């Protein structure tokens, strides 16, 4: 029997990780690390999975065969990315089958953006352009900085595929914005409700977070505000180029993008409208997320009803 290594405290482990230590397997983790890793992997897996039903209907409404092939391929990629994240969760003791098929809709931890109905093709390509950009921002940071080696390796493929989704989204956003006033208006309407959802996606502002285990354990490398800035840094020049409006501006003195309303604010889910004159607290935002959005049950049912018993017991 081999000697057990001396247990390290959570604080010592955090220090080792900050000094560059990489983690290969569950045997090397502290309980705190495992918990923090599971939490972020669950959000990532559920977000990838739930983007598939969210993207499905309007993918079949694509205006050309090429566009449809691209849209369907995006869905296939997202399911693959979900599969990777659930497979990583299995290494941490979770049951993939159970996670996908035996949870209630409100138990899924996907981002709130994929609890919304996507009602036309312009909304679909704006989701590819804005939401997949948010995904790339978050996963790109993890790919570069994470201490969990299996996730880092898996993200090479994921990052490349997400870039394709983004290119597809931005290509079509540009086309629709340039085609005529009517198609441009559809893009503007989509950006109007999706831009603030993407801003919320990155979570609590840094000054409202007491501590962040995911940063301390170097599961990710950048703070919520840094990631939000990164997203705006990429998205805003593109929206400016295609002449689409958005509620933020660049502040020369602060040398960063500043949101043009008192962030966060109330959201009218039914009409997909932000009430910019109605500021709320982050507790309210988290309550809204936990209550899940209007398409949550439909999307989870689309996934779960697809199960067939190919091997009857």
């Amino acid at each position, binding site marked *: 029997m081999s000697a057990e290594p001396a247990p390290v405290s959570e604080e010592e482990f955090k220090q080792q990780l900050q000094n560059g230590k990489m983690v290969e397997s569950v045997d090397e983790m502290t309980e705190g690390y495992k918990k923090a890793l599971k939490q972020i992997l669950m959000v990532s897996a559920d977000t990838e999975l739930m983007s598939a039903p969210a993207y499905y209907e309007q993918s079949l409404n694509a205006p050309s065969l*090429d566009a449809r*092939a*691209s849209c*369907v*391929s*995006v869905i296939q990629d997202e399911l693959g990315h979900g599969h990777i994240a659930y497979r990583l969760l299995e290494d941490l003791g979770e049951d993939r089958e159970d996670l996908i098929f035996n949870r209630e809709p409100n138990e899924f931890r996907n981002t709130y953006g994929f609890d919304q109905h996507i009602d036309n093709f312009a909304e679909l390509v704006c989701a590819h352009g804005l939401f997949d950009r948010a995904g790339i921002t978050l996963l790109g940071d993890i790919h570069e900085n994470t201490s969990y080696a299996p996730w880092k*390796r*898996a993200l*090479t*493929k994921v990052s*490349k*595929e997400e*870039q*394709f989704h983004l*290119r*597809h989204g931005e*290509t079509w956003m540009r086309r629709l914005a340039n085609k005529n006033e009517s198609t441009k208006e559809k893009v503007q309407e989509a950006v109007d409700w999706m831009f603030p959802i993407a801003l919320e996606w990155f979570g609590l502002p840094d000054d409202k977070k007491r501590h962040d285990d995911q940063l301390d354990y170097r599961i990710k490398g950048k703070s919520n505000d840094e990631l939000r800035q990164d997203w705006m840094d990429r998205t805003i020049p593109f929206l400016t180029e295609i002449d689409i409006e958005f509620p933020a501006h660049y502040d020369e003195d602060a040398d960063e993008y500043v949101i043009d309303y008192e962030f966060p604010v109330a959201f009218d889910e039914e009409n997909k409208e932000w009430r910019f004159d109605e500021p709320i607290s982050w507790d309210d935002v988290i309550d809204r997320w936990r209550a899940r959005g209007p398409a949550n049950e439909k999307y989870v049912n689309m996934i779960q009803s697809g199960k067939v018993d190919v091997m009857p017991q």
Partner: protein
Amino acid sequence: MSKSSKSEIDEMGFGPFDIGPDGTETDLERAVWANLDEIPDPHIPLSLVEMAMIYDVTVEDSVANIDLSFPCMGCPAYEFIHDDIRGCLRTMSCIDDVEINVVWDPVWSKDMLDAEAREKLQESGIAL
């Protein structure tokens, strides 16, 4: 019928693969190959040349003729790849126009990938 090995392709008369530069290229054609090798596949971390999608290149009267094929009929990046090739080659001073011929024959196969390409795919988690 699907082909899963080089020997099967040989038996069907497709091999050895007559694709890629064969040493008879002009300097300009070699430059076109080099530029095509800089175009990334939009979906996979290899260039179009590394992906063995470019079968032949000829240049006549400042027109680049590119024979290419796709790994699958419903390629999700069909349009992007056409755009990228045109966009890339039109920047060359001796090229005035680009003709892209999607040939489908020989059928693209994983066996067309060389050892270096295979290694890059495996490193990025793509099974062959």
